[in-house]
């Protein structure tokens, strides 16, 4: 029996070329793991019924000598990414039976490289949440301790990789939705530069913040998948080329003052150990607290801008164009019933909050002010990146919390995003790297080191990621 749990994509690729196993063997290996683990963990909402057919085509391509690094590599998709002909529900009841009418650009790129798309993974409904408890279909469990959350919103994508149910997966990150679950599950999660990966075929949540990125077992795979999916796309006018990275790092900045409160003591110790590791490799650690003086406002800014954009983007779910609907007496009652009955509580909460901050009389007080402060935060980062090449911070202030622990208190749940949202507000790339464990109830829970680089400088993250 093959075991690829410790291999990176390059190593698997070499074994495929050498004929040690076939792409079909590889898919069968993961299908077996899914069959054994998915009932308990609930990472996958669906395993695609043509995964083996895709693998057979990959095997032909390998035989023909036209394989790329990704040919035959099984990859899972977050359930908000469209794959033509397959259900894509956004983990919402309102799209329970929706079948994608076209494929996302990232899907087209993976298919062109010969990757095998193995299934779609669970998430918080329309990517709103930090624990995957907001899925309309059930909670994804953390594979290290099943009484704990997987993180979110890309919880299924993180667990599918952490529990060896696929080689890698795609997630989406609006305020930390790739990095935080990666941190909770002990895998690598990359949020690329805003615009570096096309969002054509991604269900929009907050359009000035959303980006697609990979969840992987190691840094080599992060780079391979990012290189495959990035680039300018004529179907997404916010997309751009991303080839200018230098990969050079000398100084690493840490906003030490910002980490003084709200950070779990054990997570702090692990973070300091990670910094020592980097110092031992010859990197200089610099305190940049003075430069990032508006960082403390980032979560407040995020919770104005994000719901405002959510309330606009969610207007498309009206029960008329696609998805499920609940009939009303007339058109408008149908809207109320469909949206009231088929959208989950957190989605409704954010629609209301967004409607409030955008409404007459309040837009000046909230929305416009939030943009001003967002621009201040952007300037802070520009100043900081004149002194250092990369910034380091923990990904999450705590390890994975218990299922149900925060689900009744939305503000507490939002505070879990405190170290991740600014990268989305500024648009810069950031990665969560598994490093260090903290003990809770006899279980070793993973923690994440977050590294942040300037726009289009993902290569610097890959340079440092190789030490972990």
């Amino acid at each position, binding site marked *: 029996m093959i075991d690829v749990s410790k291999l990176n994509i390059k190593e698997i690729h070499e074994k495929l070329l050498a004929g040690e196993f076939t792409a079909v063997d590889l898919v069968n290996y993961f299908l077996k793991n899914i069959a054994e683990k998915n009932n308990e963990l609930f990472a996958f909402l669906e395993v695609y019924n043509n995964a083996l057919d895709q693998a057979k085509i990959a095997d032909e391509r390998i035989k023909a000598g036209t394989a790329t690094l990704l040919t035959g590599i099984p990859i899972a998709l977050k359930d908000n990414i469209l794959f*033509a002909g397959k259900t894509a529900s956004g983990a919402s009841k309102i799209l329970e039976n*929706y*079948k994608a*009418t*076209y494929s996302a650009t990232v899907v087209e790129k993976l298919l062109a490289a010969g990757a095998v798309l193995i299934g779609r993974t669970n998430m918080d409904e329309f990517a709103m949440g930090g624990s995957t408890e907001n899925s309309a279909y059930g909670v994804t469990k953390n594979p290290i301790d099943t009484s704990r959350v997987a993180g979110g919103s890309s919880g299924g994508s993180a667990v599918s990789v952490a529990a060896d149910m696929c080689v890698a997966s795609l997630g989406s990150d609006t305020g930390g939705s790739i990095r935080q679950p990666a941190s909770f599950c002990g895998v690598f999660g990359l949020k690329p530069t805003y615009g570096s990966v096309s969002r054509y075929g991604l269900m929009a949540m907050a359009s000035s913040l959303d980006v697609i990125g990979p969840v992987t077992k190691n840094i080599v795979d992060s780079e391979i998948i990012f290189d495959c999916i990035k680039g300018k796309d*004529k179907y997404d*006018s*916010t997309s751009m080329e991303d080839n200018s990275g230098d990969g050079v790092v000398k100084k690493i900045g840490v906003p030490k003052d910002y980490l003084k409160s709200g950070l779990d003591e054990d997570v702090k110790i692990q973070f300091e150990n990670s910094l020592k590791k980097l110092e031992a490799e010859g990197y200089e650690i610099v305190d940049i607290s003075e430069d990032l003086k*508006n960082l403390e*406002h980032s*979560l*407040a*800014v995020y*919770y*104005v801008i994000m719901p405002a954009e959510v*309330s606009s983007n969610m207007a498309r779910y*009206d*029960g*008329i*164009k*696609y*998805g499920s609907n609940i009939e*009303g007496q007339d*058109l408008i009652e*149908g809207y*109320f*019933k469909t*949206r*009231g*009955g088929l*959208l989950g*509580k957190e989605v*409704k*909460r954010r*629609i*209301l*909050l967004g*409607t*409030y901050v955008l*409404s007459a009389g309040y837009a000046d*007080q*909230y929305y*416009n*002010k*939030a*943009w*001003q*402060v*967002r*621009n*201040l935060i*952007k*300037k802070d980062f*520009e100043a900081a990146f004149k002194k250092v090449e990369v910034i380091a911070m923990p990904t999450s202030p705590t390890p994975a919390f218990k299922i149900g622990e925060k689900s009744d208190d*939305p*503000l507490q749940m*939002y505070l879990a995003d405190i170290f991740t949202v600014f990268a989305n507000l*500024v*648009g810069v790339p950031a990665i969560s790297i598994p490093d260090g464990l903290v003990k809770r109830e006899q279980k070793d829970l993973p923690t994440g080191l977050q590294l942040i680089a300037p*726009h289009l400088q993902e290569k610097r993250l890959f340079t440092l990621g190789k030490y972990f």
Partner: protein
Amino acid sequence: MKPEDVKKLADLSRVELSEQDLQKMPGEIDSILGYIKNISEVANSTEESVIESATTRNVTRADEFIGEFANTQGLIDEAPQAQDKYVRVKKIL
């Protein structure tokens, strides 16, 4: 925020809320608004503009026909109610 304020927002958003949600959401929204209220003070202490920033720019392109969408029938099929090549809606007037 009172339940009637939440009801007004729900009406504007075309979302039906249960009685339970109407009772619970005011407190939840208040606690979130409490958390975000200080950005007003931060913004008032700066000359920073609302939208302009060094990293935002407009992207324009020629308004050219790039070909018909390949799967129009698929789009029609996804509508809960359709007839021929049309999406059916209830009468508006």
